[in-house]
């Protein structure tokens, strides 16, 4: 049934939002948002606190009804066809949604059962291995570190292979190492064809991960494009030579030895050491 639904909706973008509005009493949070997310892409919704990112995600994941406008996810309308939308998505909310009393493995089994999968135990074991949680599997999730909890949280969201995943500020409150771990997971997901819509307030996160970036500001999308398109909106980059001081993050990551993790680290390094634009040089002085 769901396979048929997926092909029927195949030509549609994964997510299409038109004229969406939402208010909480007096507070007009979304004032007419339009956006489209292509299948298999990573789309970052960038905005400061209170810009309406979470409201968007809550509407798209059927937790909230929009006041006006339409939204389809995987070709299904979020209000009229909420159950079909829920079959197509997975939500990883702002606060890790794990059951702290259950063990990591039990958390995964719980979700596998609620997704009505055949062999919940095997599903759980596979994900524990994939997310480097095998040793932690039999421990209560309440004892996990922030990063482990987030990994478990995302692992729970992958159960049943939903074609579209929402990540609401997936790295807020994580230490730099855990953040990089989450980035790796997200990149991995997109490689397998999952559509990812993530919200973030970190510019570098959007830069690292996203195929397209939209900036949500005061309830409207003010910019929407690829990173290159967004950069083109700024005055052309001037080449300046600025002595590059290691950031505290670089120092931290070197000291705790994350550079042992191979390819990832060189990526980060090259991103940082490229000629800096006037804006980022301002940041460093």
């Amino acid at each position, binding site marked *: 049934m769901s396979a048929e639904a997926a092909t029927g909706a195949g030509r549609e973008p994964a997510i299409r939002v038109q004229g969406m509005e939402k208010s909480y009493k007096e507070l007009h949070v979304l004032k007419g948002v339009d956006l489209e997310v292509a299948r298999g892409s990573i789309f970052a919704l960038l905005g400061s606190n209170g810009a309406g990112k979470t409201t968007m995600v809550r509407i798209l994941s059927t937790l909230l009804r929009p006041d006006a406008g339409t939204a389809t996810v995987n070709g299904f309308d979020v209000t009229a066809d909420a159950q079909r939308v829920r079959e197509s998505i997975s939500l990883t909310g702002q606060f890790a*949604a794990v059951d702290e*009393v*259950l063990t990591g493995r039990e958390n995964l089994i719980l979700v596998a059962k609620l997704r009505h999968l055949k062999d919940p135990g095997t599903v759980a074991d596979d994900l524990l291995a994939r997310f480097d949680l095998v040793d932690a599997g039999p421990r209560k999730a309440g004892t996990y570190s922030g990063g482990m909890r987030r990994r478990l949280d995302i692992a729970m969201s992958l159960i049943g292979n939903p074609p579209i995943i929402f990540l609401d500020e997936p790295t807020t409150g994580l230490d730099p190492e855990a953040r990089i771990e989450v980035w790796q997971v997200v990149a991995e997901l997109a490689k397998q064809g999952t559509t990812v819509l993530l919200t973030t307030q970190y510019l570098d996160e959007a830069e690292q991960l996203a195929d397209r970036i939209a900036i949500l500001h005061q309830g409207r999308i003010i910019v929407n494009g690829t990173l290159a398109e967004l950069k083109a909106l700024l005055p052309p980059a001037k080449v300046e030579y600025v002595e590059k001081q290691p950031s505290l993050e670089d120092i931290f990551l070197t000291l705790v030895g994350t550079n042992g993790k191979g390819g990832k680290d060189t990526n980060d390094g090259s991103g940082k050491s490229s000629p800096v634009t006037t804006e980022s040089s301002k940041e460093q002085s």
Partner: protein
Amino acid sequence: MSKHFFGDTAVLTGRSLSHILRSPDTIITTAVTPIALMLMFVYVLGGAINTGTGSYVNYLLPGILLITIASGIAYTAYRLFLDMQGGIFERFQSMPIARSAVLWGHVLTSLVANLVSVTLVVLVALLMGFRSGAGVLAWLAVAGILTMFTLALTWLAVIAGLSAKTVDGASAFSYPLIFLPFVSSAFVPTETMPGPVRWFAENQPVTPIVDAIRSLLAQQPVGTDIWIALAWCIGILALAYGFAMATYRRKIS
């Protein structure tokens, strides 16, 4: 009703039952206060209370059981509130599951937990000299009334859990429920009370429920008490269920 309602409810009931198994102190705490009350009333105050019947522990037990349930259901509100505070509630709501299964999981867990607490209290009462010659049918009738009472109060607890703003608020609603048996026929015959108090005691739900259970255990005719008791339970249950579902729908849409 979703095709997965029963399966999803079973899975979610299993989840919250394992919460209880991992912190059995919630069941112990639920049973300790009524047991302490029972000890105090039987061994301290009981000598001075004339109920016109033989054993005071026999007289007292039905009311104590209702107090046990009234304090036990506070944990349902508490657990539901914690689910909503954490992200797990939203995770469930964004999944393709039967939506009311989330509530039913907590309600069935409440039923099991209260059954265990009530059994503990009855065991202690037996040690204190409680005796009943009631047959299987009478015990089943008692179990039935207590089950209806638990369900009715649990759905009240669901309303409290869904609409509470703080953890304290989630469980505070149960205090009046725990207090209600004191102004009923649970501890002393209502004939000893002054006019208005007596009127209240005789017309509130606890008195017919207590009287029906007491008569069943004492092998005496239950008269109309049992029907009034059931009417109260079913009435509260229907109202509480309706309000809880309406609150839930407001919460999730």
